[in-house]
C-alpha cells in the first residue's frame, strides 16, 4: 500500500526483497518470527482516515471539551493559565528542535545542548542554587526522585514531609517509597501551615530529608527559615523545597535558606496547561550533591580547535553506563518543555520575572480580601499568600461550582478529596491573566449563589 507517511513504493519494496533473495514480505517475516507466536488475525482498529477526515474528527472531539481559556479560570493546584508570550510557540515549533532526540552526538546537537545548558543556568539564577539538571517529567515525579536522592546521599531511609505539600506530589512519593521501602512520615498542617512542633519531633539521625512546599498547596508562603533550622536535629538530614518558579520573582530564593534540593512544576514557565501534561519538573541542588543527581546534566567543553561547545556530562551517574547502580532510571528529560521554559525566562528577563510575580501576588491578595468580606465566605487560614488561597463557604462547594460555571467561571479546586472535613472549602488561584473586572464579577457571582 501507499501512504503519505510511507515513502517506499511497490517497486522499491520489490527491489529490496529481490536483493535479499526473497519473493515476498511474508517470506521475510516467516524466517524471523516463529509460527507459534504469529498473530493470525487482523488488528481491530477503526478504518484509516485521510488527513482531512482526521482533522475533522479530532476537531469535533476537541469541541466537545470546554477549554479553560473560554471561561474565566481560577484553577491552580500546580498548573495554571499564566500568560504565554507568542514568541514561545514559534520557538518550540522549530522542527530542528522537536524532531531531534537526546543529544548523543554533540557535534550535531549544539542547539539542544546549548539550550539545556542555558536552562540549567536560568534555573540556578532563579533558585539561587549551585547546579540544576536538564529537567524531569513533572513536579510530582521530581519530588519522588529528590526523596530517593536524599536517601541515597544520607544513607538514611526516613523522609519527613509536610502535609501542606501538593497531595498529588505526596501520593507520587508514597508510590515510589513503597517500592524502595522508604519510611514516609507526613506532618499534619496547623492552620494551613506545616506544624513545626510536630515536624521537629519526627526528625532524628535516621531522617534523610525534610520536604516542604512554599507557597504551599493552600497558597500560603511558609517561612522557610525555621524549617531549614530543623535540619540540625538530624545528622545528615537534607532540606527539600518545592517551589512555584514564578513566586521566585518576589520571594526569597531557596539558595538563601540553606536548602539542599529545590524542585517544582515548570508549567507556569511558558507551557500550556494541556490537561496536565506534557510539562516539566525542574530540579536543582547544591554543588556537593551534583554526582547524586538524577537526570541529564549538560556541561561546557572545548572542541579540538578550542571552540566552545556543550556535551552531556557526568554520565557515569546514568543508566546507560552504570546500569543497576545508576542514580535513577531516567534517560530523557522534557527537553521541549524545558526549551519553552528557558525561552520564557529569557523573554521575561530580570524585570519581567519580578513583575509577573508581583502581579500574581497583588491580584490574588486583592481577590482574597474581597472574598473575605463577602457574606457566607471566609478565609480560613492566616498567613501571607502568593497566588492561591483557600476559601471556606457556608455551603458545599458543588453548589457554588454549579452556579459559577453557568456564569462562565471555573471557581477553583474542591479541597474535600484531599482533606477530610473540607466539603465547603475550595482553592482559588489568581494569575497575572486575571483582571480586576473579572475578579469583581467573580466575587459578585459568589455572593449571588
Amino acid at each position, binding site marked *: 500500500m501507499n501512504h503519505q507517511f510511507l515513502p517506499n513504493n511497490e517497486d522499491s519494496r520489490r527491489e529490496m526483497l529481490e536483493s535479499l533473495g526473497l519473493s515476498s514480505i511474508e517470506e521475510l517475516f516467516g524466517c524471523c518470527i516463529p509460527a507459534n507466536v504469529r498473530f493470525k488475525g487482523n488488528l481491530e482498529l477503526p478504518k484509516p482516515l485521510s488527513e482531512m477526515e482526521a482533522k475533522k474528527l479530532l476537531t469535533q472531539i476537541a469541541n466537545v471539551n470546554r477549554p479553560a481559556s473560554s471561561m474565566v479560570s481560577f484553577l491552580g493546584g500546580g*498548573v495554571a493559565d499564566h500568560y504565554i508570550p507568542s514568541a514561545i510557540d514559534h520557538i518550540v515549533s522549530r522542527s530542528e528542535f522537536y524532531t531531534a532526540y537526546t543529544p548523543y552526538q554533540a557535534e550535531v546537537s549544539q542547539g539542544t545542548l546549548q539550550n539545556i545548558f542555558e536552562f540549567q543556568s536560568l534555573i540556578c539564577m532563579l533558585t539561587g542554587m549551585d547546579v540544576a539538571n536538564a529537567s524531569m517529567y513533572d513536579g510530582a515525579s521530581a519530588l519522588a526522585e529528590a526523596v530517593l536522592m536524599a536517601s541515597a546521599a544520607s544513607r538514611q531511609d526516613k523522609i519527613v514531609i509536610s502535609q501542606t505539600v501538593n497531595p498529588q506530589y505526596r501520593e507520587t512519593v508514597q508510590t515510589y517509597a513503597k517500592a524502595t521501602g522508604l519510611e514516609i512520615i507526613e506532618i499534619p498542617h496547623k492552620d494551613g501551615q506545616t506544624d513545626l512542633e510536630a515536624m521537629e519531633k519526627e526528625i532524628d539521625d535516621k531522617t534523610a530529608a525534610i520536604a516542604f512546599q512554599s507557597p504551599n498547596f493552600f497558597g500560603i508562603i511558609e517561612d522557610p527559615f525555621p524549617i531549614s533550622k530543623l535540619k540540625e536535629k538530624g545528622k545528615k538530614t537534607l532540606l527539600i523545597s518545592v517551589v512555584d518558579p514564578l513566586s521566585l520573582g518576589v520571594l526569597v530564593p531557596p539558595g538563601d535558606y540553606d536548602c539542599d534540593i529545590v524542585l517544582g512544576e515548570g508549567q507556569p514557565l511558558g507551557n500550556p496547561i494541556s490537561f496536565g501534561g506534557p510539562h516539566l519538573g525542574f530540579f536543582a541542588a547544591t554543588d556537593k550533591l551534583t554526582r547524586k543527581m538524577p537526570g541529564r546534566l549538560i556541561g561546557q567543553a572545548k572542541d579540538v580547535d578550542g571552540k566552545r561547545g556543550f556535551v552531556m556530562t557526568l554520565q557515569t551517574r546514568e543508566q546507560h553506563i552504570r546500569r543497576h547502580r545508576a542514580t535513577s532510571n531516567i534517560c530523557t528529560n522534557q527537553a521541549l518543555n524545558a526549551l519553552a521554559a528557558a525561552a520564557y525566562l529569557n523573554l521575561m528577563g530580570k524585570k519581567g520575572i519580578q513583575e509577573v510575580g508581583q502581579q500574581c501576588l497583588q491580584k490574588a491578595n486583592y481577590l482574597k480580601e474581597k472574598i473575605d468580606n463577602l457574606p457566607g465566605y471566609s478565609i480560613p487560614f492566616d498567613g501571607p499568600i502568593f497566588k492561591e488561597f483557600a476559601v471556606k463557604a457556608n455551603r458545599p462547594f458543588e453548589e457554588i461550582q454549579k452556579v459559577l460555571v453557568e456564569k462562565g467561571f471555573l471557581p477553583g479546586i474542591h479541597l474535600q478529596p484531599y482533606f477530610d472535613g473540607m466539603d465547603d472549602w475550595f482553592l482559588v488561584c489568581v494569575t497575572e491573566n486575571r483582571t480586576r473586572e473579572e475578579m469583581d464579577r467573580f466575587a459578585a457571582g459568589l455572593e449571588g449563589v
Partner: protein
Amino acid sequence: MKDRDLIFEKSRPGKIGYSLPELDVPQKDDILPDNLKRKESAPLPEVAEGEVIRHYINLSQLNHSVDNGFYPLGSCTMKYNPKINEDISRLPGFAELHPYQSEDMVQGALKIMAELEKYLCEIGGMDRVTLQPAAGAHGELTGLMLIRAYHKHRGQDQRKKIIIPDSGHGTNPASVTMCGYETVEIPSDEKGCIDLEALKEVLDDKVAGIMLTNPNTLGFYEENVSEICRLVHEAGGLLYFDGANANAIMGYSRPGDMGFDILHFNLHKTFGTPHGGGGPGSGPVGVKDKLVPFLPNPMVEEEDGKYFLDYDRPQSIGRVRSFYGNFGVLVKAFTYIRMMGAKGLKQVSEDAVLNANYIMEKLSKSYYLKYHRNCMHEFVLSGKKQKDEHGVTTTDIVKNLLDHGIHPPTVYFPLIVEEAMMIEPTETESKETLDKFIEVMEKIAKMAEEDPEKLKEAPFTTPVRRLDEASAARNPILKWEPEE
C-alpha cells in the same frame, strides 16, 4: 556571521522582551514580611523579543533532526513525525484544558484517552492500559511496581529477582534497582537470543519476573519466546515486555498472545510522536486482567456513554506522577493510529523490517556482522574489522557520517557486540535514502583502508568538531557565570 554566544552574553541593562498590562488593583507593599522577600532580583538576561527569536533560530540550525536528515539511531525509532499532530495537539479544546476541570467539561479528552487505551490493548494483546507514565523508563518503573504489588498481594514477598538478558537496555537494570529489586543478568546464545539453559538455572521461587525486549536489541525476535514464557510462569514469575522495539511487530505478533503479562509502549517511538530533543515522550503500560487492580490511579471508565476518572481502586499502586499522563502526546498518538489504521500499521512494520534487512545485507560486505541472519527492524553492525585492520574505531566511523549529513547509529550498544553500531532506519525512509547511506558507509570503509588518519579527525563540517568530554567531566562547568 553565525552567532553562537550564550543568551547571557547578549544581555544589556534595561532591555525587555515582554509586556504586561498595568497592574489594575491597588498595589500593597505590606503583603510580604521582609524576611520572605527576594532581596536581589534573579539575574536573568535582559534581551528584546527579536533577539530571543534570533538566538533560538540560530540554535535550532545547529541541530540534526529527522526533518533535515537521516537519523538511523538504533532502538530510538526516529521516524517522521506527521505535521497534522502538531496542529491537533494545539487545538484550544486540548491545549487549553485544565486538569482540574470537572468531568462534564472534558468528555472529549477522556474519550481520546479511553479510545487510545483500546487501540493499544488491541495492538499489544493486553486487557487494560494506563496512559500515565511520562516516558519509556517511567513505564518500566511502573511495570515493575505492578509486579511487586502483584506478588505482595499473593504473599510472595520473597520474590526479589528480576532477570534481564545481557542485551537489555541500560534502563532495565536501573529501573529494577529503583523498585528495590535485584537484577540477575543472563547471557545470549550464539544466535543472539536468550540462552534457555542459563535461564533455567536462575529460575526459582525468588524470581519476581523477567524483562524482555522483543525483538531484542540485536534486532532478533526471541525464537524461544513461548518456551521462555512457559518456564517463567511455571516458576511463578511474571513477564515484562519492553516495547522499545514494537515498531517491528505491529499486526505480526502481539506480546499478550505470546504470554507476556505487562508491556510498555513508547508512543514517541512506535506511534509517530516527536522526540522533542529528549522529551516529552509517553510510556503507557498494558497489563493482563490479573494485574488490572494494581494499575495507577486514576483510570478512565465509561458508563452510559459518559466518561469518568475512577479513583476508587483500593489495590492501585497509587499515582506515578501528576494528573493523567502526557496528554498532548496521547492526542498525537491517537491521531497517528487513526490515520494509519490496522493495515497501515502492519505496513509500517513491514517497511521498517525490510529497510533494515536491505541495509544489513549490503553493509555485511564491507563491515563485520557478528550475527548474520535476517533481522527485524534494526541490526547491529560492528566496526571490529576496521579497528583490527586499520586502527579505526566505531567512533571514527560514525563521526565521518556527520560530514555527510547523516546522524550516526546508536554506538557501543549492545555491549555484547564489539565496536557496535546499532542501525534502525525506520519505515519513513525511502530506498533512495538507504542507498545513499549505504554508499557513504562503503566510502568510509574504503577510507579506513586508504587514509585511516584522516578518518580519525572527522568531523570537519559540523558546528563544532570533536569535543573534549573527558575534561568536561573532570572539571564540570554546568552553568554560565558572569566573569568577575
